């Protein structure tokens, strides 16, 4: 069979049209999310490395400085497994907390406004934390200081994105706070972070049993 040859001028057109050099910021972010999933499809992938990769990806594609991910343990309770952007004492305080399923369903203890498909915005003025949990914030002395503008993101504000399994049981959640601009995150940030969170859930649910420890 004769060797087939390429139409080089059409090939040049294709390479220019699909060049990564001219991607939009949204396309860049989606590609980062895809690469996150790709990195997790790996024989060495463990739950902890997957969670750490997810945090790194959130830092890369969004304006959040403070990120924490909690997952469900074998005892049915939830604990923070990975964090970034917290002072040492705040991180230690978070690691010590154990949430029960009842805590997650308790809207009175953690009042929130829904801001996306799986996201809830906890407004600082509603004191969305239990007594004693002030230490989990980076600047507890700023808690209770009112915001100057409705679009400020202040200490005590945080967003949670929930991940549910096939039986609608909570598997994990992502905590997000402290935007670089000190303003509430853009709509784009929420949409992209929700997409990443959904991809994280897919990866977690498809990890082999040996990788869950």
């Amino acid at each position, binding site marked *: *069979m004769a*060797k*087939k*040859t*390429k*139409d080089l*001028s*059409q*090939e040049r*057109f*294709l*390479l220019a*049209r*699909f*060049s*990564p050099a*001219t*991607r*939009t910021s*949204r*396309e860049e972010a*989606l*590609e980062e999310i*895809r690469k996150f*999933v*790709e990195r*997790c*499809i*790996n*024989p060495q*992938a463990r739950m902890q490395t997957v969670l750490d990769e997810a945090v790194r990806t959130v830092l890369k594609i969004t304006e959040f400085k403070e990120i924490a991910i909690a997952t469900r343990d074998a005892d049915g309770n939830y604990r923070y497994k990975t964090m970034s952007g917290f002072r040492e004492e705040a991180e230690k305080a978070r690691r010590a907390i154990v949430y029960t399923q009842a805590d997650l369903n308790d809207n009175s203890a953690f009042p929130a*406004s829904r*801001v*996306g*498909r799986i*996201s809830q*915005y906890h*407004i600082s*003025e*509603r004191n969305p934390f239990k007594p004693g949990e002030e230490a989990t914030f980076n600047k507890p002395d700023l808690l209770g200081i*009112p*915001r*100057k*503008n*409705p679009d400020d993101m202040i200490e005590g504000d945080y967003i949670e994105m929930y991940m549910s*399994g*096939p039986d609608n049981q909570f598997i994990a959640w992502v905590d997000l706070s402290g935007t670089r601009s000190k303003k*509430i995150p853009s*709509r784009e940030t*929420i949409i992209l972070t*929700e*997409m990443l969170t*959904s*991809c994280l*859930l*897919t*990866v977690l*649910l*498809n990890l*082999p049993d040996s990788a869950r420890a």
Partner: protein
Amino acid sequence: MSSEGNYCALLMIGKPSALSAIEELLRDNYSPISRDADENAFSAVESLIAYIKDRRKPIRSVLSETIRTIHRSFDFQYIAIALRNIDGNYRYKASSGLSSESEKVLFSLSYSQADLLDESKYPYTSISDITKFFMSEDEPYTLSEIATFPRPNILARTRESPDDMIAKDFINIFFKNRSKEIIGYIEVSDPRSGKMPKRGTIVWLELIATLLGACLCDRLEGEDG
């Protein structure tokens, strides 16, 4: 007093209207109603993820749902998904946009790993690490495969503009297992617009393909897709 001052004053005295202002802002800013076509793609892919994340779903249903999502959300009318079988060869397992005769031929085809990457037999242009564009001008097919192209009545049509996507053009997006071996691919062609996809569409298809890899990588050995 400035509006900012008013707002602060309301907060200091604990007026519910101050909290209402924040809540109203959150509602407006993050309304679930899509604001552009690409936000619709986010919703569609989120729904697909909600479906395919469940490992109990049969592989055939996962493939069908993936094809439905691509068909609804993007420009393509022909979509097919091939998976690696236990014998190491790749066969099409699901498709849309073909006549039943063409689909029968498509499902009878089998490709080795070498075939997938054989540029002398199936010339292609790599537009990313996992996506290959097969151009009609390069004749990326054998005679027996011509029967699998959608819309045989326009197969002879040539490209009038470089951004036309014509009958024998097709795009393959590959997905891999944990050992980085190709375990399948999504194939698309025949866009409704007659034009090549935007780069953003390829980014979405690559994300969908990679997610399929995540969902199927440990299942193909044990199940007949």
